[in-house]
């Protein structure tokens, strides 16, 4: 009976010079890895301890796991609501800032108008502003327009915060796409928007995806503004960590669980999209074309 052998994809072999011969390099790498991972590991372990074990001195490594802290977080501290807030606000801010930023970046890349480079620089400087410097004025503004502790308020704020980043990232990618491509589409019969939609946009989609992922992460992790501008209604996850300091003691296990609450969703998100992230940042549809031509 004939057997068909399934072709295994050839695993790329390392070249001689790529194989590491020095054992002590591995030792250093191991040490560094452990040093990096250990704090996170400790946090995760702590999250699964009950209250007493969490406070034990010396700290225990082996214990009976319990989900007491998680239960407390959800029932007593309404973490699930804050999780939802984080989700709504981060996603909305991402969609808005990328949506608006794409067109702004295109304009800066394509059109020549008086003061263009000044506008571009001004946009960039907005990102350089440390949030802490403007927290109090922002608070007062938000108070005046009744946007404190609202989802909309934070969404607007985050959109404004992330727009410079989006514009800065995407402008370069739009500039990389030759104008001639759009011009060819115009000659072929497309309107400006049709050419943008069918030719330009598909070519920058990887970059837009990567930027959106970046913005999503930044919005999710934003702490300073969220702490001041939000209240019980619209609070996002990062500010909740402060609340675990009760007088002079810290609820370690709850704090650990809260950290997991904050970090896990975004970690899972990144795990799923990292392929697009890397592809977007290192993208080169145009570079591929150039390479192909240079090969002649």
């Amino acid at each position: 009976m004939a057997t068909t052998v399934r072709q295994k994809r050839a695993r790329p072999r390392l070249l001689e010079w790529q194989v590491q011969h020095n054992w002590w390099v591995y030792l250093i790498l191991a040490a560094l890895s452990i040093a990096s991972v250990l704090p996170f590991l400790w946090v995760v372990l702590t999250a699964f301890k009950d209250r007493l074990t969490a406070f034990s001195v010396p700290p225990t490594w082996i214990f009976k796991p319990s989900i007491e802290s998680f239960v407390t977080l959800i029932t007593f501290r309404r973490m699930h609501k804050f999780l939802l807030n984080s989700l709504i606000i981060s996603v909305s801010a991402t969609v808005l800032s990328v949506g608006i930023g794409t067109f702004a970046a295109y304009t800066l890349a394509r059109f020549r108008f008086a003061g263009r480079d000044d506008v571009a620089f001004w946009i960039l400087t907005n990102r350089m502003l440390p949030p802490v410097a403007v927290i109090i004025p922002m608070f007062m503004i938000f108070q005046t327009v009744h946007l404190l502790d609202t989802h909309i308020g934070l969404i607007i704020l985050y959109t404004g915060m992330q727009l410079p980043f989006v514009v800065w990232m995407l402008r370069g990618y739009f500039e990389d796409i030759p104008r001639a491509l759009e011009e060819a589409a115009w000659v072929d019969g497309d309107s400006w928007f049709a050419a943008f939609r069918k030719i330009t946009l598909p070519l920058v989609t990887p970059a837009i995806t990567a930027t959106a992922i970046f913005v999503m992460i930044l919005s999710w992790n934003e702490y300073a503004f969220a702490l001041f501008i939000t209240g019980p209604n619209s609070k996002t996850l990062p500010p909740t960590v402060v609340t675990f300091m009760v007088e002079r003691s810290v609820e370690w296990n709850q704090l650990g669980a809260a950290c997991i609450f904050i970090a896990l969703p975004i970690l899972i998100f990144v795990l799923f999209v990292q392929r697009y992230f890397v592809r977007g940042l290192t993208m080169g549809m145009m570079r591929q074309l150039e390479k192909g031509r240079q090969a002649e």
Partner: protein
Amino acid sequence: MAEVLIKNLYKRFGSVVAVNHIDLDVQDREFVVLLGPSGCGKTTTLRMVAGLEVPDEGQVQIGGRDVTYLAPRDRNIGMVFERYALYPHLSVFENISYPLRVRRWPEAKVRQRVQEVAETLRISDLIGRKVNQLSGGQMQRVAIGRAIIREASVFLLDEPISHLDAKLRSHMRGELKRLQREIASTAVLVTHDQLEAMSIGDRIAVMNKGNIQQFDRPGRIFNLPANLFVANFVGEPSMNFLDCALVRENGSFRLEAPGLRAKVDEKWLKGSKVLSAGSDSRLVLGIRPEHVRLCSGRQSGHEYCGEGKVYVVEPLGSEVIYDVEIGKSIVRIKVFEEEAKRLAVNMGDSVLLEFPSESIYLFDKESEKTLAQAGFALAEEAKA
């Protein structure tokens, strides 16, 4: 009818005048070439015909319609861009069929038309490929396919073959000319390569610094250049230019330059603009390298103009180019291989040069206009 009419076209970028009030007419089914060095305004002119730039002044008409301010999509044109501008994320088929798909042609008709075009351009086997898998020559043919698929009234080409290697370029020159005849479309091509212009164009518009220097058939551009710029630009190697003065002695006229004296025909001079230009106008003598006669020793029956030393010899296979130092200038002479063998002249040899009087051009040094066209060219012109 798809003639292209350009009237008083003017375009400025900041303080630089790119196109300076030019007029041009391209007849129906004519292949006109805009020729000139970088920055002369030829590409800007083409882009204004295409609708990719808006003129500051002037008018563009296609087929009798004023299209000056119309978007490219409303002008019924096809265009081949300098670096092909193929859509990288689409296949060859999708690239070529793009103009038809935009206009919502039925799929069956689209497929048929793409087949036809692919066969004409001999790229039928490339239809399914992705654009980044093609060579330069193949990409260029796909770009041409995309431009001609709709049978537009005017076919515009912006340096379509500049980026191909020399061999492919010379092959494509002929292909482009054939194609234009086959599809019987009006075409305007922009190039800086004078060889390309001469071989392809029905008429050539030589441009410099935003102005049209001369707009004529290739033969006339070459043999009857309107000014020094045109005379210098067309022809390989380019025409020799020597500052000279007109001297009258014993009733005969002579051109004198350092190390050189050439006799000229009085009738020819009288029929030209040289004498009316005034005695203080300084002259430039022009003669093409292929018309200068080279001799290693004095022979009877020849009127020699001067003696010089061979500076360098460039054998090109079928021809040989000699650079001869005479007076303070270098005169380049092009000679066919057989004659070169007969001459047996080497670097450093002393040689005698003859400038046949019917091959001499005279230009005004200040205005650079042609004052006297070469006798042989005028004779040919009179016969035609």
